[in-house]
């Protein structure tokens, strides 16, 4: 496997002080202010000046809410990342477990927030437990995956060196892997920081006393447009700040920018071993599920085990009806999910290519996109729906936006990975920028594109279910929320199982497409 290391190229990462992002931010703010004034009285958009006025009046309350949410997000960030480091260490010291660890981790990451929230609330009772756990769940996977890559991101001879002095895997981990993985760890942490904040906010929807999430719910219900936009602004600011702070920390520690890569190409293995891993992961997941209900002695009214779900979907008298309801809801969701997912991927890759042809714009767009990909979806979902309506457009756009930013960042990075020597050869043939794009840059971009495409599967499922739940009231997201409020826990757990399994399968399917296409266009990436 080829490991994408940080090249010296992305100058914007090395020189964080550049005027371009400030200019684009200023333009954006001006447009926002204009739109806000145009739309005043429609209860859709608050202008920056109105947001500022609101913040000036209510900053004390906002600061207290922010402190609570940040505190929980920070704890979740720590626990989630420690879990990721522990899992990655296990996989590194005991390589045979890697595929199973990664598979189980993916499955847990695919659990829909809408459903895990209430379950965690019951487990923890009142307090900060669910907020912290959801924050941890939101971060551990995005740290684990780069870390697994990073722990392997060293030439084989470094490990030979350790072995040649008679030392084993633990020494390799301590002396080689740990340091080699550091840039990747920082990449993970950078993405994790905004994600932890989002997780903590969603956790607050489960009945927390205070925090930014609680205020968001309140603001939307009360038609308080200033408050809604003020919350979104603060949450966005915090997310961007967290991203920037970790980036700065990384630059200080590493003296080089962290790699922007999101995930390694799926390890190419024989189909049988992939199936075997899938089977082991499924069995372990079922055991853990069954075991957790017993260990925590959860009440069977709401804690449904694998047997209950099997009964509800296959054996029960109304099993056909349950299946039909689920299939209907999943169908509704897919109608929004697939176009949004594909549109987001195409837009991300397309814009990245366009910007490579027009490098002046790239310096402006890249930092903005990096920043915007950390905006928490729970605050944007209601805003996008306010602006674009509850029809298909709003949902599709939101899913596309969730997919767009990470894809764009990854693709732009990938396009810049094109090996300089090959570019020089093309230069010597006076090849134009388009030829260079097609012949060299796009093949070089493919691994990053697919890494983004895979990570976008759970992200888009999260986006679509959150929008359905908070805004449109359609599809499987709404079905899960409704099942919880109507105590139809058989349905809820069945939906959780299906959504998680389908997300994980979607992830695997993208991995399969990736292997096929990389074999054709960039075989060195698969080897």
């Amino acid at each position: 496997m080829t490991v994408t290391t940080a090249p010296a190229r992305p100058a914007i990462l090395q020189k964080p002080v550049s005027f371009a992002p400030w200019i684009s931010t200023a333009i954006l703010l001006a447009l926002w202010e204009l739109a806000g004034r145009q739309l005043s009285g429609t209860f859709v958009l608050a202008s920056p000046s109105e947001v500022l006025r609101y913040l000036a009046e209510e900053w004390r309350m906002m600061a207290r809410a922010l402190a609570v949410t940040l505190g929980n997000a920070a704890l979740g960030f720590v626990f989630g990342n420690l879990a990721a480091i522990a899992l990655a260490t296990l996989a590194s010291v005991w390589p045979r477990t890697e595929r199973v660890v990664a598979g189980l981790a993916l499955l847990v990451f695919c659990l829909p927030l809408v459903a895990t929230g209430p379950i965690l609330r019951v487990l923890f009772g009142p307090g900060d437990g669910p907020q912290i756990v959801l924050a941890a769940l939101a971060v551990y996977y995005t740290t684990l995956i780069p870390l697994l890559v990073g722990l392997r991101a060293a030439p084989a001879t470094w490990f030979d060196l350790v072995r040649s002095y008679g030392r084993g895997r633990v020494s390799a981990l301590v002396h080689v892997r740990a340091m080699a993985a550091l840039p990747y760890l920082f990449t993970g942490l950078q993405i994790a920081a905004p994600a932890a904040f989002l997780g903590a906010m969603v956790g607050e929807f489960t009945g927390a006393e205070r925090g930014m999430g609680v205020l968001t719910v309140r603001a939307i219900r009360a038609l308080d447009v200033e408050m809604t936009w003020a919350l979104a602004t603060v949450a966005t600011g915090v997310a961007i700040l967290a991203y920037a702070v970790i980036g700065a920390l990384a630059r200080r520690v590493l003296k080089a920018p962290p790699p922007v890569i999101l995930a390694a190409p799926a390890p190419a293995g024989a189909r049988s071993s992939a199936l075997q891993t899938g089977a082991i992961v499924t069995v372990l997941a079922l055991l853990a599920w069954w075991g957790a209900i017993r260990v925590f002695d959860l009440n069977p009214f709401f804690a449904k085990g694998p047997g209950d779900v099997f009964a509800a979907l296959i054996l029960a008298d109304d099993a056909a009806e349950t299946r039909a309801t689920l299939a209907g809801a999943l169908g509704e969701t897919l109608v929004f999910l697939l176009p949004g997912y594909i549109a987001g991927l195409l837009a991300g890759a397309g814009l990245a290519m366009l910007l490579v042809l027009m490098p002046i714009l790239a310096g402006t767009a890249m930092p903005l996109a990096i920043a915007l990909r950390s905006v928490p979806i729970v605050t944007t979902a209601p805003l996008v729906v306010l602006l674009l309506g509850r029809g298909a457009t709003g949902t599709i756009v939101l899913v596309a936006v969730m997919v767009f930013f990470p894809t764009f960042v990854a693709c732009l990075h990938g396009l810049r990975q094109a090996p300089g020597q090959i570019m020089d050869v093309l230069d010597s043939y006076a090849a134009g920028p388009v030829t260079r794009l097609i012949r060299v840059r796009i093949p070089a971009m493919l691994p990053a594109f697919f890494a983004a495409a895979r990570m976008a599967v759970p992200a888009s499922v999260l986006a679509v279910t959150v929008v359905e739940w908070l805004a449109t009231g359609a599809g499987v997201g709404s079905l899960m929320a409704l099942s919880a409020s109507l105590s139809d826990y058989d349905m809820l757990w069945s939906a959780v199982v299906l959504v998680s399994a389908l997300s994980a399968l979607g992830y695997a399917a993208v991995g399969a497409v990736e292997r096929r296409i990389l074999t054709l266009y960039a075989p060195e990436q698969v080897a």
Partner: protein
Amino acid sequence: MQKTMNRRALIGGGAAAAGTLALGLAPRRLFAQTPVTLQLSWLHSAQFAGSYIAQDRGWWIEEGLEVALSQGGPNAPVEPPVVSGTALVGISAADYTAAAVEEGAPFKILGVAMQKNPFVIASLPDNPVNEPTDLVGKRIGMALANTPVLQALCALNDVDIDGIEIVPTQYSAQPLIAGEVDCLLCWETDLPVAMAMQGIDSVTMLMADFGYAVHSQTYIATEDSLANRRADLVALMRGEVRGWDAYREDTDAAAELTLQMYPDAGLDLETQKLQAARQVPLMFSELTDANGFGWWTEETVAANIETLGLLGRDVTPDLWDRSILEEVHGT
């Protein structure tokens, strides 16, 4: 850690409760307060101000209870904590309670805070919906999940639901103001209040006035609690009754107390005052004037059973258990 702490608190509470039970009617005040949780159905607001008054004035402490008011939220169902015993009592509604019972939850309704269901059809004055027949030909904004509610209203009033255009919307007054819909299915105490605070007049048609009889903000507890923790239940409900009676006397003060107790909830005083005032007619009636807060009769239960039937919920009168309330009101 959180978990074990809760476990410990629970065990402690159980032990204390067992202690009082063992001593029968020994004076409770000599013992440590029994911690119990009341699970609210939504975020803190004047909607639960009666409970805040009881808390603030120490009426539960007098009863030997240390009550924690656990707020709900968009992703916080009430039923699981009550089933699991984390909460002694939850604030639910007859339709949700009926659904939970169908799924095997051993619930009883102990009291009814909202005699009249708060569902309304809200519209703007120049295109009003004053009675169910006005709905024909209109676009109504609502969550699709609430379709059975509209179906029930139509069935009760012989209105053809096919004549109404249902537009799925998020729970917000914005589509009505923007003219995307002609009316909204919402609560009397939230979206119309939000509109009023923005200076927008609205017309509300209370569905309860047109036969939609579903008890709301109902107190639920498990059969097990009813059998084994009666004293705690009576104490809790006694505080509630006192709190809500005090609330009725001065809703403005209740709204102020809400903000004072929950300064971080992002509440607006004027909004809370208006909400507090508007929910009074839903909670108090001739029936409660005659028998006390939370009361119901065989007739109101029968009406509920009929409406619930239209909502697809098959329930029997024994879902309601008035024994706690009778003890509280001394009848």
